[in-house]
């Protein structure tokens, strides 16, 4: 990214979407610089729906979604990149590991979509980064909540995403595990410098991790 004032670095997230879901209407306008942008609000405010729209799993009725200068969706221009083309690293609230695949296969699932030159993390690096070396041959249902969440983060990172979407990644964890995963998220934010769109209803968590807070 350039620091030339005539060409400022593009916004990490430039989102303006609306979508009706049943009786509810979800609307969000968001412009955020790189770092961790937290969508903060009570359950049922449509936070997950926003992430799904950015990931391409839910189609907005109106608006646009641009990440790091690239248009993922633009209703006016009829642009709608398919989810597999968006290079989002989505860490779901419930992990969503593939139950029939061992940890190693889960981690490697997203690797092959990326051209060799665009990969920025190897399996060994991800395993060391997350401390999950002992888990590689296990099946997801044998993992604890914290282990599963670390594998889910590793799976997202190994697909060499251009940005991360994290949906309450600490929700199902006890205090010790939360601390562990928060440290990992801070390292992703500071060392890997990935733009992160983060959803949470926990104020303390958001205040510690976020560089931008968006109340919803």
């Amino acid at each position, binding site marked *: 990214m350039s620091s030339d004032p005539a060409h400022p670095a593009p916004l990490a997230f430039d989102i303006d979407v609306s979508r009706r879901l049943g009786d509810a209407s979800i609307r969000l306008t968001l412009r955020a610089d790189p770092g961790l942008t937290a969508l903060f609000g009570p359950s049922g405010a449509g936070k997950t729906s926003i992430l799904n729209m950015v990931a*391409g799993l839910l189609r907005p009725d109106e608006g646009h979604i641009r990440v790091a200068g690239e248009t993922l969706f633009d209703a006016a221009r009829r642009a709608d990149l398919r989810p597999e083309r968006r290079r989002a*690293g989505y860490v*779901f609230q419930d992990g969503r590991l593939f*139950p*029939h695949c061992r940890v190693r296969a889960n981690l490697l699932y997203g690797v092959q979509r990326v051209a060799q030159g665009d990969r920025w993390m190897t399996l060994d690096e991800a395993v060391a980064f997350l401390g999950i070396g002992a888990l590689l041959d296990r*099946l997801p249902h044998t993992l604890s909540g914290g282990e599963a969440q670390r594998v889910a983060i590793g799976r997202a990172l190994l697909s060499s995403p251009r940005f991360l979407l994290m949906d309450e990644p600490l929700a199902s964890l006890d205090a010790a595990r939360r601390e562990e995963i928060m440290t990992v998220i801070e390292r992703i934010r500071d060392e890997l410098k990935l733009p992160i769109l983060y959803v949470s209803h926990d104020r303390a968590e958001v205040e510690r991790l976020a560089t931008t807070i968006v109340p919803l």
Partner: protein
Amino acid sequence: MALLSPEEWEIITLSLKVGGVAVAGTMPVAFLFAWLLARVRFPGKLLLDGIVHLPLVLPPVVTGWLLLLAFGNNGPAGRFFAETFELTFMFRWTGAALAAAIMALPLMVRAIRLSLEAVDRRLEGAARTLGAGPVRTFLTITLPLSLPGVLAGAVLGFARSIGEFGATITFVSNIPGETRTLPLAIYSALQMPGGEQTVTRLAFIAALLSLAALMISEILARRAGSGRGGHVL
């Protein structure tokens, strides 16, 4: 082999051939119907659902008669297959397999549909965000996760096929070595004076075959489930 007479061997191999061909041939069709019914919204879905399940509720003799009309040598479908693939069904084992396939179809569709509906679609979404297109998502997520249902469908279909009687005897008659499968052979033996011993032996074989099919599928389901507690039925 001393245990079984040549006639009995012929009956068993014919039954297995008819059942195997029926299940293998029906599987792609059953999967397609199950997919449509589980995943796709379209007008006329209720009607398709009804037609697929018709063989389950129609008297088998009626199904056999309808097959005779459609796939007989003068029927429209019969002519089409005879001219295009040189494949005829009347009074042949292929006809027995066709009758068995039609009778097995609803059971297979039901089993596969249930397992497709049980697949967590959010996992498919996760695969998409990881860069898998629709085809790879289907092959690596949807299909393996619905495998227990596919196996259950295959077992049910196979059991239905080797037990099929009414539609078969109506459509392709009861010809030794060609269309005389286990149930038809048991029926024939019952008609003959002094056939009790044959009936007993054949009935025992039928029970063994069914049990074997069940056990094989249970073992396969356990392997496919890798300890996730997958059961076929």
